[in-house]
């Protein structure tokens, strides 16, 4: 508890690779929730070791999308039964990462968000090397149990990473 500023939490956690459950990485983090809940929490972290290199998969996905004749459009990922087709898996993962940013920017000590579903995704053609996707996602908030729709525009490039504008 930091008087006049907010609440600071010191965390020790283990990161697990979603695609390779045996691959884990230790991590320590400090999260500062500001008083008033209007500002997103400050997060500092250090990772022990290195995250797995996904360059090959990234490039395959990047080239596949770049070579599409028509812009990618999709809905309901996963579908009602929880299925995600293999072609949509990277689109799903990208939404996952981007929603992490949205969740961070909107979290307080009293919220617990999860990405529930991608309602709609539409690729936006760009003249530069970036890929752009317009997502409508559904976030589930555990305490209120509410499902919150959110619009996000995501820019991505294998070497330049992810950028999110809400």
């Amino acid at each position: 508890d930091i008087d006049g500023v907010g609440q600071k939490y010191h965390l020790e956690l283990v990161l697990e690779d979603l695609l390779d459950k045996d691959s884990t990485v230790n991590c320590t983090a400090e999260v500062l929730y500001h008083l008033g809940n209007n500002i997103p929490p400050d997060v500092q972290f250090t990772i022990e070791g290195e995250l797995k290199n996904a360059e090959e998969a990234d490039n395959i996905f990047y080239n596949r999308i770049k070579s599409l004749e028509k812009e990618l459009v999709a809905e309901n990922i996963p579908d009602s039964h929880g299925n995600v087709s293999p072609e949509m898996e990277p689109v799903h993962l990208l939404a996952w990462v981007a929603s992490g940013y949205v969740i961070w920017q909107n979290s307080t000590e009293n919220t617990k968000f999860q990405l529930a579903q991608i309602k709609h995704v539409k690729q936006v053609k760009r003249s530069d090397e970036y890929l752009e996707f317009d997502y409508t996602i559904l976030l589930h908030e555990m305490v209120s149990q509410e499902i919150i729709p959110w619009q996000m525009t995501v820019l991505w490039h294998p070497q330049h990473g992810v950028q999110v504008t809400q």
Partner: protein
Amino acid sequence: DQVLHIVPETFQQVQHLQQLCSTLLLDLWKPQLSEDIWAGEDLHIRVPAPLVQEVKDSLDQHMISYKVLIPDVQKLVDQSMPRERSSHRQVPEGYVYTQYHPMEAIYQWMTQIQKNNSELVTQHYLGKTIENRTMYYLQISQPSDKTKKIIWMDCGIHAREWISPAFCQWFVKEILQNYKSDPKISRFLQNLDLYILPVLNIDGYIYSWEKDRLWRKNRSPHMNGTCYGTDLNRNFNSSWGSIGVSYNCSSEIFCGSGPESEPETRAVAQLIERKKSDILCYLTIHSYGQYILTPYGSTTKPPSNSEELMHVAKQAAAALMGKYGTSYEVGSTSLILYSNSGSSRDWAHTIGIPFSYTFELRDKGTHGFVLPPDQIQPTCEETM
């Protein structure tokens, strides 16, 4: 069967294709009619398996180039649809427990289960939902001259938590398939009766199949039909309306107009109230989060038998983990999750049922409510 994609280049090619289609009665997917085949336009034809080679030879002969759009039509059909075949047969041996089923199928399943296991299973009327659908529970009871204690389990109080009704169905199947051969289960049934309610919130469940996959509440209308649904797990008479609820119908945790305002709540409460002196354990199955939750949600003050409750729950969590390594957190809702009032679990405990637990099944948020069907089996096996 294959679907071929052809773009005819000349009028002769168009004519040949039209002739081929009419002679062999091929299935035109695009265009619909033979007379709409044009040079330079996409043509998609489904060719039955026995004719595939003949058609390709004919195209080659006439120098018509083609691409295979769909190499195996049946495979695609099977992938995109749940196994309608099995559920039509309504024989539990054909019932697919590793898939999610709509309410119609679950009703039929209950009838079949009773029919095929009539020495042990009876289907009972519980009440009606707000949309006037009938609620049934299954009683699994081995004939005996002694009165047995009861374990009650309900699933599907929240519509979107599909893994929950899937678990109830799995549970019934496991018990019935193994009670003769498994000594643990047979001993169980010698001393206990099981009452299973596969879907408590029937209207909500149907709504999540047909209209809104992430619906949670029931379907009771409020404010002249401008707003729908009460959270049934905030509607029980346990510190009703005090904490962790909303009085606003538009909220997902709307507690209703009063305790037990909803017919679904009343149906469950009335039965449990009637049988309470014989009920040893009340279980209510939810998702997601991987928790075994003990009373209370409305206060952090521990229940009278808190030690025993925790001990049993911890053993359950350990046993569960032993199966696939899935970890479940154990504790009182108000301490490890969030505060809430009006929950069925709290109410069951306050009226005297000693062991009252909420199970929050897989997962921890990666898929959340939309748990893929390949996780049904491991989730159910470990929870069993």
